[in-house]
């Protein structure tokens, strides 16, 4: 038998040998006849959504056979990459492994890429060639980029003008470029139109880069070219920018010709709607996005590129038995945040466990808190609580909202402290990471 790197003999046997029998069993027996105990759930994607779903499926129903498919052995989070870019954290502190999921919860983790989905046979094909069969499939694939939709911005361009919107080599590339930038240089960030991953992300990013530049390269400038006229926590960001950085950050909204239509990564130039050309020393382009590609392969994404779901369970409205969570979904008014992916995962894990046990799904309620750091000791938040009302997702009336404008420094300092604690909390809940470990 050909060995697959990183998969134990037992796992490999299970993957290669038993899968056939499993799919036969799945085909031969109606699901009702199979007990909850023998049901197989495959989860694709080991980020905030997928890792949490795998862990909580085992917590809610320990006898389930749960396999998590994630290419990376160590997962680096997008949240807090801005703190790394600002010099406040080292990159390794953003990495999490799957040992607690495997050793403590009994999740089988397969470090391969999910390449194709056969919804008829209920099988998913992996990059190594093996197939996994499922009774229920959870997709938490995050985002992919619409390469080329922004003229001149494709994968090759991203090597010169990084997006750094997935944590990894791109993030480190952007940091190296900032370190190499001369004092007095211009950093340009191109922000996309809605919807996109992490609505406050571009604004926290320029904040953290402003912190770095003010400290290390104080003659530099930041230009934020935006395809929108408003953004998440806008009043709080602008207040924080003024207080901490004066006029270092210039935000250009769409109505003031902020929308970029063309990128020349070789020249580090961008051209806006009305033909103005801006030249950067470091150019960071956050491109238009869509659901991760496996969502397209599974047929769950619609013409928008995102995935419509049943609001109560997050089961696909297009393919029964496939559940989709996290950034890939159409879940407005919930934002595409790691926190939301984590809470969606737990509600969906519960709905799947209930379904396999022949019970109705629970009435869901989800919360979200997005922390952003404007400067060391200066944190802000937006929070929300969501439920299903008249068949639609909604924010619970008279709840949630943003931190108060004009709050004193101690309030901002507390939210900065809680931001760090939040990261520890969600890393604990998602991967089992212990603070300082």
């Amino acid at each position: 038998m050909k060995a697959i790197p990183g998969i134990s003999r037992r796992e490999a046997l299970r993957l290669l040998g038993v899968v056939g029998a499993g799919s036969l069993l799945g085909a031969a027996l109606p699901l009702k006849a199979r007990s909850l105990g023998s049901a197989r759930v495959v989860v694709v994607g080991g980020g905030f959504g997928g890792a949490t779903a795998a862990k909580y499926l085992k917590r809610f129903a320990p006898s389930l056979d749960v396999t998590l498919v994630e290419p990376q052995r160590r997962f680096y989070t997008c949240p807090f990459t801005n703190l790394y870019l600002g010099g406040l954290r080292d990159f390794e502190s953003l990495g999490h492994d799957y040992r607690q999921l495997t050793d403590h919860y009994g999740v089988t983790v397969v470090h391969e890429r999910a390449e194709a989905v056969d919804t008829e046979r209920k099988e998913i094909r992996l990059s190594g060639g093996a197939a996994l069969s499922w009774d229920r499939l959870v997709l938490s694939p995050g985002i992919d980029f619409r390469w080329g939709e922004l003229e001149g911005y494709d994968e090759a361009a991203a090597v010169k003008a990084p997006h750094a919107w997935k944590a990894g080599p791109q993030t480190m590339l952007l940091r190296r470029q900032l370190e190499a930038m001369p004092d007095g240089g211009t950093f340009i960030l191109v922000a996309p139109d809605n919807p996109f991953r992490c609505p406050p992300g571009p604004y926290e990013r320029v904040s953290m880069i402003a912190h770095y530049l003010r400290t290390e390269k104080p003659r530099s400038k930041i230009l934020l070219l935006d395809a929108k006229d408003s953004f998440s926590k806008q009043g709080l960001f602008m207040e924080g920018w003024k207080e901490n950085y004066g006029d270092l950050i210039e935000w250009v909204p769409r109505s003031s010709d902020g929308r970029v239509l063309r990128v020349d990564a070789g020249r580090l130039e961008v051209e806006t709607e009305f033909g103005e050309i801006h030249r950067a020393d470091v150019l960071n382009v956050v491109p238009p996005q869509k659901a991760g590609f496996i969502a397209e392969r599974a047929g769950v994404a619609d013409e928008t590129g995102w995935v419509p779901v049943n609001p109560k369970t997050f089961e696909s409205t297009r393919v029964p038995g496939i559940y989709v969570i996290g950034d890939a979904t159409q879940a407005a008014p919930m934002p595409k945040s790691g926190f939301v992916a984590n809470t969606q995962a737990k509600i969906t894990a519960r709905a799947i466990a209930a379904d396999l046990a022949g019970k109705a799904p629970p009435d869901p309620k989800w919360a979200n808190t997005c922390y952003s750091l404007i400067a060391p000791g200066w944190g802000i938040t937006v929070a929300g609580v969501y439920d299903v009302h008249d068949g639609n997702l909604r924010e619970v009336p008279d709840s949630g909202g943003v931190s108060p404008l004009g709050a004193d420094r101690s309030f901002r300092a507390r939210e900065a402290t809680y931001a760090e604690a939040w990261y520890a909390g969600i890393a604990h809940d998602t991967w089992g990471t212990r603070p300082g470990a």
Partner: protein
Amino acid sequence: MKQILLTAGVLAVAALFAGVLVQSAPEPESGEVVLADRAAVIAQSCAACHGTEGRLVTAIPPIAGRPEAVLHAQLVAFKKDQMPGATVMPRLAKGFTDEELAALARYFSELPPE
């Protein structure tokens, strides 16, 4: 088991038992959960800051195993904007009914602390 003990009202014993279980079992919550348990459903959101089962000790305080009356009073105070120094919790607490806040207080009080 948790519920039987609580029905009997033996909170201290519950805490003791849960503590023993933590030593011997990987997680206090073994076996299939009671899927209809409303508090357990809505409590999952709390774990994204307070850690799984609300047990993580950081600048955000752990909530597992704290007295039910204390937790309930705090949640109500958050919702009514009567908690000095509060940041995000008042905005979150307003998203839950009074009954849900009471159920959350009970749920976390019954969990073993770190």
